[in-house]
């Protein structure tokens, strides 16, 4: 637990001082929303409610990939990753600390993106804000856990910026299907659908446990 708290503290303090990930993720996410809005035929906002969940999760997913790439790139400076891998503790706690830091940063970006999305697409999220935050949070747990694992794998490869999305995006499909479905039902009816939420919970648990266990080997050279 000492390792978990130390890594979480280190990642958040470093991010606070450099704004390395959050700014890049936020700008990319807002630009994605902007592009999606302008690619939508002007005056044809009638069917926005139907496509909004998918568009929102496109912005969340791409911005998370940007942030996850940076999460381990900062560890390469001064070979700090080797220093981290040398820690005489269960490396799963390193994963947990980094995944939670990624989750917190992604959650902030998700909030700002949802506000911007609502303004541009003329959707009022406020009646379902709490429940939408829950769905976004459950999706973000999955994105962060499996994303942290694959970011650690990709960071040692030559083409890491390309490698991470190639490895990660196919694995995110079950998360995206459930998250988009849950968001769509929520925006349409105002209630949380049981099925997609349960699926998200199971996927999150499986990804988090597998990532925790396999991280020991991921940090080996």
């Amino acid at each position, binding site marked *: 637990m*000492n*390792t978990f*708290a*130390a890594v979480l*503290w*280190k990642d958040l*303090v*470093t991010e606070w*001082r*450099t704004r390395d990930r959050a700014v890049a993720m936020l700008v990319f996410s807002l630009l994605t929303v902007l592009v999606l809005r302008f690619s939508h035929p002007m005056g044809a906002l009638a069917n926005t409610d139907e496509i909004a969940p998918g568009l929102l999760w496109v912005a969340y997913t791409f911005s998370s990939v940007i942030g996850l790439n940076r999460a381990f790139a*900062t560890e390469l*400076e*001064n*070979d*700090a990753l*080797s*220093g*981290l*891998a*040398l*820690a*005489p*503790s*269960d490396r799963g706690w390193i994963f947990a600390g980094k995944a939670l830091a990624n989750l917190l940063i992604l959650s902030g970006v998700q909030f700002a993106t949802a506000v911007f999305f609502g303004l541009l697409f003329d959707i009022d999220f406020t009646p379902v804000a709490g429940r939408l935050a829950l769905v976004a949070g459950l999706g973000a747990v999955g994105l962060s856990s499996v994303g942290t694992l694959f970011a650690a794998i990709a960071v040692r490869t030559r083409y890491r910026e390309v490698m991470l999305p190639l490895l990660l995006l196919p694995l995110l499909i079950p998360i995206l299907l459930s998250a988009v479905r849950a968001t769509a039902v929520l925006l349409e009816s105002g209630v949380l659908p049981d099925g997609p939420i349960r699926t998200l919970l199971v996927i999150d648990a499986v990804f988090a446990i597998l990532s925790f266990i396999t991280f020991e080997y991921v940090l*080996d*050279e």
Partner: protein
Amino acid sequence: MSSDSLAIFARGIEKRFGHVAALRGIDLELPFGRSLGILGPNGAGKSTLVRILAGLSRPTAGQLRIAGEEKDRRRVRGRVGLLSHATLLYPALSARENLRFTARLYGVEDAQSRIDTLLEELALTAAADRRVDTLSRGMAQRVAIARALLHQPPLLLLDEPFTGLDVRSAEELEVRIRAVRDAGRSVVLVSHDIERICACADRVLVISQGRVVHTSENAALDPAQLRAVYDRAAEASA
């Protein structure tokens, strides 16, 4: 001598990266309180060996025991301090914050007093709260030394630690390495600098193409002779 009483006991260490053999059966024994220098041309396998000794990489074959520990890789990592040409430090954190972070990773008891002592010993007290990315190369390397020694490891691994240091900083590091050895810890020093290796090491290995091709004990350490062996190794691997 029992392998449990050695800082390093290695038998037949091999490492392959796909079809490329980086190490081809390295045997190594290093008692506590002794220092070992490792020389070799680029690509000889020196850094690969250091990273295996540190627990950062697994050997493809062979037996390795560090300070009596073989099976539990976590405990092996806890018995090693690593210093390389890269400082392993976070640039956005201060020197003190980097050391505090390391102390938590290693579960160092009474960390604050240990950090203060090391900062004082390494003449870093005045710079302790400056971010690492504002320190000179020599100062950052001293913080890296403090980082490597913080948990008082019985084995200190130094991989090209003189790279990028000015003359004065390199001399200070040389003194520090000897002090660490004299305090009863074992030191492995990898470098291209034959004179410094001779000044710091009790024993020197020359590695070429993943094999030990020469060994000298301290009584016979002769920089000129080592230079000749080194040059032959470099020619062989060219």
